[in-house]
């Protein structure tokens, strides 16, 4: 037992490797939230009038809403008036190419392992780097624009493609959707915009890297992905934040629109600062992610590896509106120390012959709480809907919790829905089997956990899979069940 404890100790005392921060001159909004601030943000970003009105409308709706309390998480309330809603590194005008970007900013991303220099990058991934409230740089834009693909920061999209933005903004996640979506609609600062025209297969992975640097700042980015008929795109999202004692709020909205025969694959490796081992600090990650399979035979696939954040509250969902459309959700959520995660998905079957698949793997260690909350809804006209859900939990340590809240609401007699869930710890017999074959206990645990999460990790694009596996190994090495 003492060996177990020492290994657990070592594991729980692991430091967060992206915990550093950089001091640079920033352009910041005053602290607080009111209509004036929203006008300030909108003016700062030189937004058209319709967007400002849209923001104000969202703000007024938000004022009438109350913070949701149903999630299985506990945290001190956030003083939303005590936050700064805009913070941007000071730059000399807008940079047209990489040479004009402040080298200090490039250095931040180099340190995170994200090279913004196209020559130095691996072929195949275009990056939009978002620091606090603004997008710093977007790579490979030229290559992509030849195919008609638009990949840029949200602010640029508002200026350059206002019609597209106007058409799709809020069409999947309306501003009235929930408390944090309304807040995001009012104050969102930047994010990525991606548009794949009809029949185009995006030749490289598109990626956004979010970094919170400033203190006392909320990050509210908005991502909008539009895949027209018969197009394909694979999109990656990564995130880190410095280690600070106070909690920071991250309330993003991601909207995906998939036309007929289009396919969108969205992968996230979420590694926000989870707080220290006593549960101090860390990011509150309250995110609304939703995709709509608007056309027939559309497909949206969410893959997420959740290792960070003090509190996670996130349900990437699919609205399967088109006939024969497919929704997928693959998730590995790891919680340690005092982390709390309440995550899952919603699959709303509206069209006929729609299919969905949910694979959720939770791993809880330390004193953390890990919940799966999901809904499979088959509407009355969704004939022959098919769903398979599997949510497994692995517990490490006797002070953590694993919870499952699956809602299955079926209103059509031809639906086939299966749900299964198991909760267990790593079996002593499994460890023993490995030990017998000369595999040390620590390696055996890594082996078993990797095997356990493999079904999800396999869904990740190559580069991400490597990062995710590293993260998993870092978080879980040596924890003996």
């Amino acid at each position, binding site marked *: 037992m003492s060996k177990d404890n020492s290994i657990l100790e070592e594991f729980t005392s692991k430091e967060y490797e992206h915990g550093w921060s950089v001091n640079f001159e920033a352009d910041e909004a005053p602290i607080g939230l009111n209509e004036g601030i929203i006008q300030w943000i909108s003016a700062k970003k030189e937004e058209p009038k319709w967007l400002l009105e849209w923001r104000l409308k969202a703000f007024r709706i938000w004022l009438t809403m109350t913070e949701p309390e149903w999630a299985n998480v506990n945290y001190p309330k956030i003083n939303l008036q005590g936050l700064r809603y805009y913070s941007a590194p000071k730059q000399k005008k807008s940079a047209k190419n990489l040479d004009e970007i402040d080298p200090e900013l490039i250095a931040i991303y180099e340190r995170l392992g994200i090279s913004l220099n196209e020559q130095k990058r691996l072929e195949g991934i275009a990056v939009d780097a978002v620091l606090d409230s603004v997008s710093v740089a977007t790579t490979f834009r030229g290559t992509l624009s030849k195919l008609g693909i638009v990949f840029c920061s949200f602010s640029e999209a508002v200026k350059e493609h206002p019609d597209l933005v106007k058409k799709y903004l809020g069409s999947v996640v309306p501003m009235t959707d929930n408390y944090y979506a309304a807040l995001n609609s009012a104050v969102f600062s930047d994010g990525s915009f991606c548009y794949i025209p009809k029949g185009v297969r995006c030749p490289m992975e598109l990626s956004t890297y979010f970094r919170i640097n400033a203190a006392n700042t909320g990050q509210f980015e908005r991502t909008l992905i539009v895949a027209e008929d018969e197009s394909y795109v694979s999109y990656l999202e990564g995130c880190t934040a410095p280690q600070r004692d106070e909690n920071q709020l991250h309330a993003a909205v991601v909207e995906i629109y998939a036309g007929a025969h289009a396919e969108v694959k969205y992968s996230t490796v979420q590694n926000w600062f989870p707080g220290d081992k006593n549960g101090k600090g860390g990011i509150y990650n309250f995110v609304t992610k939703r995709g709509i399979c608007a056309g027939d035979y559309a497909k949206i696939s969410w893959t997420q590896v959740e290792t960070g954040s003090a509190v996670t509250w996130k349900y990437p969902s699919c609205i399967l509106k088109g006939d024969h459309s497919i929704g997928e959700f693959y998730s590995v959520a790891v919680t340690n120390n005092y982390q709390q995660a309440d995550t899952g998905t919603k699959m709303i079957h509206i069209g006929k012959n729609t299919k969905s698949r949910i694979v959720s793997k939770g791993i809880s260690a330390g004193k953390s709480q890990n919940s799966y909350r999901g809904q499979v809804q088959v509407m009355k006209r969704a004939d022959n809907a098919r769903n398979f859900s599997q949510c497994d939990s692995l517990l490490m340590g*006797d002070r953590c919790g694993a*919870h499952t809240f699956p809602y299955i609401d*079926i209103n059509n007699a031809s639906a*086939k829905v299966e749900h299964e869930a198991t909760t267990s*710890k790593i079996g002593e017999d499994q460890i023993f089997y490995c030990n017998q074959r000369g595999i040390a206990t620590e390696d055996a645990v890594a082996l078993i956990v990797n095997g356990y999460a493999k079904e999800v990790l396999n869904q990740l694009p190559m580069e991400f899979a490597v990062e995710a596996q590293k993260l998993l190994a870092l978080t879980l090495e040596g924890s003996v069940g």
Partner: protein
Amino acid sequence: MSTLTKQDTFIGLLDTAPNNFSAARTLAKESYLSQGIPVAKAEEYKFSNIGKKLEQNISNVAPAQPFEVTSEMVHSSIFAGYEGDLLVFSNGKFLPQLSSKIEGVEVSLISEKNDLAIGSIAKPEKDAFAAINQASFEDGLFISVPKKAQIERPILLLSFNQANGGQVIQPRFWIEAGDFAEVTFIDQSISLGDNSYFVNKVIELKGGVNTHLKYYRLQNESKSAIEVSNIETDVQKDARFTSVNISLSGDLVRNNLSLNLLGSNSEGNMYGIYLLNGKSHVDNHTNVDHTIPHAESNELYKGILADQSRGVFNGKIFVRQDAQKTNAFQQNNNILLSEDAIINTKPQLEIWADDVKCSHGCTVGQLDEEALFYLQARGIDKTQAKGLLLYAFAGEVLEKIEEESFRVYCDTLIQERLGSKF
């Protein structure tokens, strides 16, 4: 916390309460006032809007008065082959002259047991309806099985319910079984007439060390009956609790069935069938609380839903931090037979201990086409083949009933339903 609505309609009922158990009644009343009748948004009653149903159908929120029950009525209501003991009730009121004297078991009115800790098992703060019952029940029945008593004959709780103006019937039971005792209860209600009424039932069961409590229940009341029941059981070390709940009818039925495993090596088994047609709506909420190490629970609920019926299943398993070495299994299978039938199911696990084996499974689907084809290829027509397969589907639960005459009776009812329906 649910929002308050229509409290006032029940306040009148609370005022009719007798004077005994004043501490428990006051506590329950306060608890009810803070909870109110659950509204549509309340998580626990999300799919069963009982407040609205009561508002529409229960015109007169007053206790339904007992009516005359004759021995002929009793005899004709008892299912064939039953040879056990009998306790008869009229609108919740115990009728000793029609009931059997049960050898070795103490039966008395709750009002004669002034020091009874009512509400200590089915706590009023957990459910608004349990609170209403505790605050305003007229009287109830106390049944005590002494230590080591092996009561071989089952005890049938036969309730006759009838209301002329949509009134409220509030049965209440306290059942305790001493260490090493074994006893079987069969709970059945008969509706007289088609008038709507609201049954708000509470049963508290207390099992000692190594007791075996069996509780079978058949819900086959009128299509306009509204019922909420709170049945909660505490069992100690080495004890076993088995329940089988068969729901065949009812306008809106909500069953809160809870089991607290308080001693190691205790075991809970909960089985259920809901076979519904018409506009019946049956909501089964089960709750197993593993508080100690080395306990086991099994749960299997099966639903067959035809016409515009609606089934709701919410199975909760709690495994507390100290409850290491817990084994908990839960399964819920459903078949929808019509376009308008709805199932809302939520198998829920909340686990705070690590050395446990817990799993749940849930399916919604149809009959296996290949199995149907197999039977048809052997000369069984499609309707019959379907009935046969559905019967087999339900059979897995039915066979858990150990009391043969009751099992045969339920079996016949289910066959009739499947035969006439499919």
